[in-house]
């Protein structure tokens, strides 16, 4: 099991490096905040933990994690969208 997970991790790492070798600097902030929203994927783990039937401690920790991860996901995507909506080309004006 662990080997399989490591295998996936390594492949994803290489893919991540390949995906964005050259990014125009104007997109650095949106890329950062957009990928930051993706790192909120931990929301999936938080949902599993806070939805547990028993184990009070785990549920409480999961619940706090869920609030934080949801802020990260919802806030991250919305603010990135707001930023990207401001970037516009001269062509759009005409």
């Amino acid at each position, binding site marked *: 099991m662990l080997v399989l997970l490591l295998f996936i991790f390594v492949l*994803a790492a290489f893919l991540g490096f390949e995906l964005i070798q050259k990014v125009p600097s104007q997109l650095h902030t949106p890329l950062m905040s957009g990928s930051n929203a993706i790192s909120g994927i931990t929301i999936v783990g938080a949902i599993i933990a806070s939805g547990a039937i028993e184990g009070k*401690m*785990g549920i409480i920790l999961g*619940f706090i994690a869920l609030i934080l991860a949801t802020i990260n996901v919802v*806030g991250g995507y919305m603010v990135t969208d707001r930023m*990207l909506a401001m970037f516009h080309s001269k062509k759009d004006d005409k």
Partner: protein
Amino acid sequence: MDLDSLINFAYIVASILFIFGIKMLGSADTARKGNQISSIGMLIAVVAVLLTKGMDYTWIVAGLVIGSTIGAIAAKRVQMTGMPELVALFNGFGGLASLLVGWAEFAAHTDDSHIGIETGAAVVLTILIGGITFTGSIIAYLKLSGKMSGNAINFGGQKALNILIAVAIVVLGGIFATTGATWALYALIGLSLLLGIMAVIPIGGGDMPVVIAILNSFSGLAASAAGFVIANNVLIVAGCLVGASGLILSIIMCKAMNRTLGNVLFGNFGAATGKTGKVVEGEMKPASVEDAYYVLEAAQSVVFVPGYGMAVAQAQHAVKELAKILEDNGAEVLFAIHPVAGRMPGHMNVLLAEADVPYEQLAEMDDVNPIMNTVDVAIVIGANDVVNPAAVDDESSPIYGMPIIKVYEANTVYVLKRGQGAGFSGLVNSLFFRENTRMIYGDAKETITGLVTQFKD
């Protein structure tokens, strides 16, 4: 297809959407769509996990509602000038969430004697990376928002203390992974949080773009580590993608400062080289707004070089207005943006985009340097080290070798500056003493607004 396979299939779809999303975020025309695609991926992943059998939805619904409300309000309310702080804060929340997920998994297994060495090691990593991301981001947030001094904080024995903390973490990590002792876990959480604070306090404001990029990378790795704890593929893949892209961004930032990652994180500026730079002789020549107006009036090409000072003065709208007037006056106007200008990667671009500057006018350093000698007027707004010619011609300078925007090649350079002080690096900027440089002291916004008024009269 049974339910588990369906959920896993949905995770694959989500991962693919994340990959496309990140890819599309890398190009201006597709960026917005890319972000939307990745958000759909997130929605699919969340819906999929909600299908899991045997869950109690009470806390889940409450958490989702509370989190969404806070997140949405923060995203709507934030000013563009406050963007670096908000990104740092969100980042920290992500890190803490991953830490808690790792901890919760351990807490849920507390009846068993031992969670197993592999899961134990994954919990250690999740807590370590998540903890550093959380407190590191909070310190970065405090520094960026001015709630704490942006200067580097150094004290005697700092390095020794950090090494001690790191060694203790390794030892405790080993103990926890092999025995599953709860006390070791608590100590680990405390030390990881402490390490995050210790790692960011000695880093000064000008290095913040690198720090933010690294913390962004860490928040992804923390999610990925949490994925190992709960054996969940989508966490591993998505977290790792973010980790890799954040690392690339950090390296881009470091290259733009001609420094290595290790140097930014562990070396204090200038201290590493022991260089101080030549003493600059000559005098700075002040100019008035009227002087600048006459020169700008006749200029055929103008390049603006914005820096953190423009963000502080909130001068972006005034600058845009001046740029528009200059264009209507027949001049060609460009904005030359250094990769590390400001306090986060791409900071200046966001501010100028907010002020409605079309992105064709935003030029990168490498594109604008070759044409600099044909430029009539370069206006430096609150930028300092990124235009210091010492990086090119003074081998004894600590910033020697750092790529800069060569404004000194322009016919005339106006430097808008609050006072006569040095830049973040503490260096005297030899640009200010050049024959073709004129200093306009005062608040950047007032100066620009003054120029706009001159043109209108």
